[in-house]
């Protein structure tokens, strides 16, 4: 607990600014394929951070994230589009996020009362009911074929040509920066939440509802607010995804997507913003990259070749599934646990830490706290 020296402070800032800088120059080097994957990852990261807040911090499982992504995406499309009020896209973006929050709020009678795995499966209902509505209410949602997404002004290929350092800046490049900005906003706010009063209250009610409530935490309200906030992040992610896809279709927002998000936060490491981000990139980018490059693997046949051999997509699926298993086998705390472990190993080579200051992961067993 020593005062930060100039050196550590510089290190601290360096660790934040450098990655950001790096992300900023990427569009100068990557082509549309990579930028698209990057954009998907950024959007997923925003959603994952929201889910991390709910599941990792407040201990509330949600399999309904796909639904809130859909609310955000469709909300934006409808608000900014035709049919719909045709609002200015930027306003529509903000309203869509609020709409997702409101949708989360509507679910709060359940979200405030139902806990853990029960909530997880209850939210499953949202995905199925939501899908049902997306298909049925076709005057708003466009039905099965969905709707095309009105672009944000200034974020299309047809906007005034922009060439920076010899690189033409099209929609992909511009959207990348939008995604980056929204992601930075997410990071900033989520860290604030986690380290602030709400984060502590949520952690407390995750670990012991009783302890939290007798210390003055309004359990049901905090639970449902966490749900609302997480829905809003999901909504934002949904808008960004819609902009990246240029078209929203109901089938994308299915259960598999919710499960993916769950995988993201666990693979990244529960309870931290950086973890959720790492997990989001892993889960989003890996299958896409593997699918693209799998045909270069040995023993993999070209798509559509004879029976009984492994095609590239299958190979990619095998590898992806195995990657999930392996990552979690060897770093049960997720990708973030991995970096932390590397760091402590480095620290351990220096003089041993004293008993009180070391921050080892919590022990495996903790007495279950039912009482008295």
């Amino acid at each position: 607990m020593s005062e930060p020296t100039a050196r550590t402070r510089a290190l601290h800032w360096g660790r934040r600014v450098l990655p950001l800088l790096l992300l900023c120059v990427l569009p100068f080097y990557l082509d549309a394929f990579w930028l698209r994957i990057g954009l998907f990852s950024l959007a997923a990261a925003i959603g994952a951070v929201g889910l991390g807040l709910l599941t990792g911090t407040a201990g509330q499982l949600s399999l309904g994230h796909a639904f809130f992504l859909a609310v955000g995406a469709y909300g934006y499309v409808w608000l900014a589009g035709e049919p719909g009020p045709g609002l200015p896209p930027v306003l529509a973006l903000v309203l869509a996020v609020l709409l997702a929050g409101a949708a989360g709020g509507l679910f709060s009678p359940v979200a405030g009362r139902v806990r853990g795995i029960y909530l997880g499966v209850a939210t499953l209902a949202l995905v199925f009911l939501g899908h049902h509505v997306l298909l049925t209410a076709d005057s708003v949602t466009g039905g099965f074929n969905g709707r095309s997404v009105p672009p944000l002004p200034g974020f299309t290929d047809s906007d005034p040509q922009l060439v920076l350092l010899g690189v033409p800046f099209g929609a992909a490049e511009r959207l990348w920066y939008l995604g980056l900005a929204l992601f930075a906003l997410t990071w900033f706010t989520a860290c604030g939440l986690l380290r602030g009063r709400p984060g502590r209250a949520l952690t407390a009610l995750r670990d012991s509802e009783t302890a939290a409530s007798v210390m003055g935490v309004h359990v049901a309200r905090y639970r449902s607010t966490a749900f609302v906030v997480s829905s809003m992040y999901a909504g934002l992610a949904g808008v960004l995804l819609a902009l990246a896809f240029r078209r929203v279709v109901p089938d994308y927002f299915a259960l598999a997507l919710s499960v993916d998000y769950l995988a993201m936060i666990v693979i990244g490491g529960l309870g931290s913003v950086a973890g959720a981000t790492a997990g989001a990139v892993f889960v989003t980018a890996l299958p896409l990259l593997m699918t693209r490059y799998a045909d270069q693997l040995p023993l993999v046949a070209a798509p559509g070749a004879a029976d009984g051999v492994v095609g590239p997509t299958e190979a990619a699926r095998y590898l992806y599934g195995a990657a999930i298993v392996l990552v979690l086998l060897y770093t049960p705390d997720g990708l973030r646990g991995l970096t932390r472990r590397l760091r402590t190993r480095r620290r351990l080579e220096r003089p041993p830490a004293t008993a009180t200051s070391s921050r080892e992961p919590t022990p495996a067993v903790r007495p279950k706290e039912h009482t008295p």
Partner: protein
Amino acid sequence: MSTSAPRPQATEPPELRVQEVTVRFAGLTALDDVSFTVSPGSVHALIGPNGAGKSTCFNVLSGLCRPASGTVRLGDAELTRLAPHRIAALGVARTFQNIVTTEGTVADNLMLGRHVHSRAGFAASALRLPRAVREQREHLAKAREIAELTGLERHFDTPVALLSYGDRKRVEFARALCLEPSVLLLDEPVAGMNAAERARTAETVRDVRAELGLSVVLVEHDMGLVMRLADEVTVLDFGRRIAHGTPDEVRGDPEVLRAYLGTETPQEDVA
């Protein structure tokens, strides 16, 4: 103490009155028509054999359990209908007999105790408004102060799960203090501590009571501690109040000796 909003009761905590409280669980009356009053600023001990209903009484006081009949009043407020968090906001803090801490460090737990004294909501914290940042810093200082008071400063940044039983017990105590309560409910605060540590905790209780002028309701099986600290004692057995009075009165009560203390020696004193 400049940080928290000034509490009106800071000088004179309201009186806590338990009136004819009855609690039933399926087929079992855990509290049977129990009444007692905790006068402002006093230490009121609640003793009795195991299963007498002491913890249940605490659960009623802190809103975790709703009595079948009877009322609990704190000053003018009636607590029996309030949710636990509302009761906490009125200045009632408690510890648990079986430790109920949350994961995270001691600091995190103590900051939870500051919850009712801080305001920052989701929006303010997310946007890191200056007010939220300042508030957080001030409360952290306060929590550290209380950690020092309870001998936890060494463990301030240690995850609670790594502490020994006695230290975790202390964390609970400190967390309750962080609430700056007007009424402090302590359920066996020194269980699992050795004599020296018990004395130290007793000292702390005495200090904070003097300093903050709060009322304490104490459940404890360590009769020495009870005798030393308590101004008044209520004895429960099978959910019923069997004795009431000053420590000395209670200690001599044959009913108490039979049901609770079970020693022959004091009985001779009485004789």
